[in-house]
């Protein structure tokens, strides 16, 4: 397969996954903003955390002096200036898909092209923050469509592996960031850890990754921070957890290694990260510090992306 084709397949699904994750964060944020404010000193705390969770905080304040819900929604959903707005993600996904139209099945192409056309309409009609849920669930549907059409129609060859790698690298990145948001929202001094507000924040993190019910099934317990972290980092049966992402990443990289008859740097790196997650324990993570652990993970995940590029995409 052409390296350029592999590159476009990787980024096409990666951008769709990114759009979905931003939509999830927007959805969770708008829900949180309906609850009593986390902090009276910073009434925008939820919306600022949405910017952090999507790695758009700095880019946002390059454009605006002050955050308002309308601005954050516009910036994350529709902005042309924000390189990782949902609009830009879907445009990029479509541009990548268009560049490798021949490597896609018509179902997958139509899922992406249809989404891109529909996106123009959403953008034209300007979605209000109160109406963001309808838009966010549409974005999730798009992602499901793209994913589902690929699952049902794509040949299981190297191209399919490239697509899946894009999904899981991006998803691991997003889950780590969403979890790390907790670090950015400082509890007001008088709020006890494990109090009502703390509970709300952890539960909204679970919602953002569709894990609210899963948590109950797995732990049959009220929401406890270390269990949320365990679920989203170490539990392989949780499909958005870091361990699950890396189980998939190593699988698809091994498939590529088998197909091409050659292993390389990306296989070695992925295996190293995966085994650390598989053998990891929550206590250790909390000892290192959750934020430090996640920061380190994000850096490693980024390095793996670079290794994949080096090995296959150029």
């Amino acid at each position, binding site marked *: 397969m*052409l390296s*350029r084709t592999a590159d476009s397949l990787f980024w096409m699904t990666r951008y769709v996954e990114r759009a979905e994750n931003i939509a999830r964060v927007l959805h969770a944020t708008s829900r949180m903003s309906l609850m009593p404010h986390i902090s009276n000193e910073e009434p925008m705390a939820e919306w600022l955390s949405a910017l952090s969770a999507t790695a758009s905080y700095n880019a946002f304040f390059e454009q605006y002096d002050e955050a308002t819900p309308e601005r954050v929604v516009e910036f994350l959903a529709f902005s042309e200036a924000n390189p990782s707005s949902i609009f830009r993600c879907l445009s990029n996904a479509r541009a990548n898909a268009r560049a490798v*139209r*021949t490597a896609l099945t018509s179902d997958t192409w*139509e899922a992406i092209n249809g989404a891109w056309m529909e996106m123009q309409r959403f953008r034209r009609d300007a979605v209000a923050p109160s109406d963001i849920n309808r838009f966010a669930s549409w974005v999730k549907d798009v992602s499901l469509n793209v994913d589902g059409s690929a699952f049902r129609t794509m040949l299981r060859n190297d191209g399919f592996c490239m697509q899946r790698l894009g999904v899981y690298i991006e998803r691991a990145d997003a889950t780590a960031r969403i979890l790390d948001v907790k670090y950015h929202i400082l509890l007001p001094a008088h709020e006890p850890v494990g109090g009502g507000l703390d509970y709300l924040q952890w539960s909204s993190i679970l919602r953002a990754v569709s894990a609210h019910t899963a948590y109950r099934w797995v732990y049959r317990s009220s929401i406890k921070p270390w269990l949320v972290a365990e679920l989203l980092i170490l539990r392989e049966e949780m499909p958005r957890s870091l361990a699950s992402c890396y189980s998939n990443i190593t699988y698809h990289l091994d498939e590529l290694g088998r197909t091409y008859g050659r292993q390389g740097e990306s296989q070695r790196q992925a295996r190293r990260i995966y085994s650390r997650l598989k053998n990891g324990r929550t206590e250790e993570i909390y000892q290192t510090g959750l934020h430090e652990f996640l920061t380190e993970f994000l850096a490693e995940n980024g390095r793996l992306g670079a290794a994949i590029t080096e090995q296959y995409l*150029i």
Partner: protein
Amino acid sequence: MKPTAFDEMKSAEDGCRQPYKRVAEWLSSLPSEVIEQKREEAELLFRRVGITFAVYGEGQGEERIIPFDLVPRVLSRGEWNRLSAGLEQRVRAINAFLSDIYGKQEILAAGILPPELIFQNPAFRPEMMGKQVPAGVWIPIAGIDLVRVGQDDFYVLEDNARTPSGVSYMLENREVMMLLFPELFARHQVAPVDNYPDELLSTLQSIAPATAPKDPTIALLTPGPFNSAYYEHTFLADRLGVELVEGRDLLVRDEVCYMRTTEGLQRVDVIYRRVDDEYIDPLTFRPDSMLGVAGLMSAYEAGNVTLANAVGTGISDDKAIYSYMPEILSFYLGEDPILKNVPTWRCREPDALAYVLDHLDELVVKEVHGSGGYGMLVGPAADQATRDAFAAKLKADPENFIAQPTLALSTCPTWTETGLAPRHVDLRPFVLTGKDGVRFVPGGLTRVALRDGSLVVNSSQGGGTKDTWVVDD
């Protein structure tokens, strides 16, 4: 005064020509709401599949779909057989002409063509002098534009011998028609066209370099997503089952062309290139080209890779050369042309120029090297001021222009805002030539000028397309 056009459906004593009988019945049985609804369905289908084209000069990324007309254009088997014999003859002559022009140049020695028409022609590639191409096939893929003016009167309007496009519309139009109107196909014996990609693949395989393996590696070279015909490039690569490559995917080492893949470099034997000569190799042609492959010409000249179409074929579809095509054909084949040429005034000749300037209001004047309907004057449709401005351009640079009478292009019923109405059409059949002979699919692409009275069918100028049928007599 405008002559009345031949109506391909209605120009018959009983009001309907034989090949159109059933289509006419079908049309009269369809309420206009149904036609309108089907038209919208068709547009939706085209948009969803992404059959778009970009128009140069408009905002980048601007994508439009070519309007599709639901009423098929019908040719009888007998008509098609005559046309295809003429097309085959014409393409044979053009291949012989190219072998000669880049070889011994006997046609110049015989005084049939003025040498400056070749040597001063920007489409002439001196790099190709003395070169041979596999099986003597210079234009494996030709798109010959035909127009009809009467029952048996077909003219060749243009020989497209560089990178003719439009074949994807021919194929998609048929698919959409079969989806929308299955009952229509049940009633007719319409010759299929969907074997075109197979024929194209066999053609390309047949002209692989002699040193290539039995199953040669073929790639389709595109300028990239911003090219107006990009959709077609992806479509064809898909149907051919070959890689769609851009210049940056290829590299040349020791006169061998490779593509960069996830498994390293892979040798390429045949390139179906949709990039023009000037852009194909920055070392030989335009150094600023980002679309080409450095050194590709060296691999080509070493015979390690076949380019389809060959480099330098533009010399044969030039509008000035066109006017000599009947003489060229007789010179090489010793036959009379089956298909007629449109009478052409070469403005480079003083007598012709004087005539053209006197009769601007009845002629179509075209740039010799232009294409796509840009830079032309349709005399009868233009106002006096436009004609005067054009006359000045003409006098300043007569060599650059030819003129032809305004042909009364045939019309075909077409769905318009006010119901069915006749609109002018042309026809671009695609002719494939390989080592083992000439291949066709019956029909081709019918383009239709959607504006009332317009004679310009180019998609960039408001033209649309129709499905084209060849039906048994």
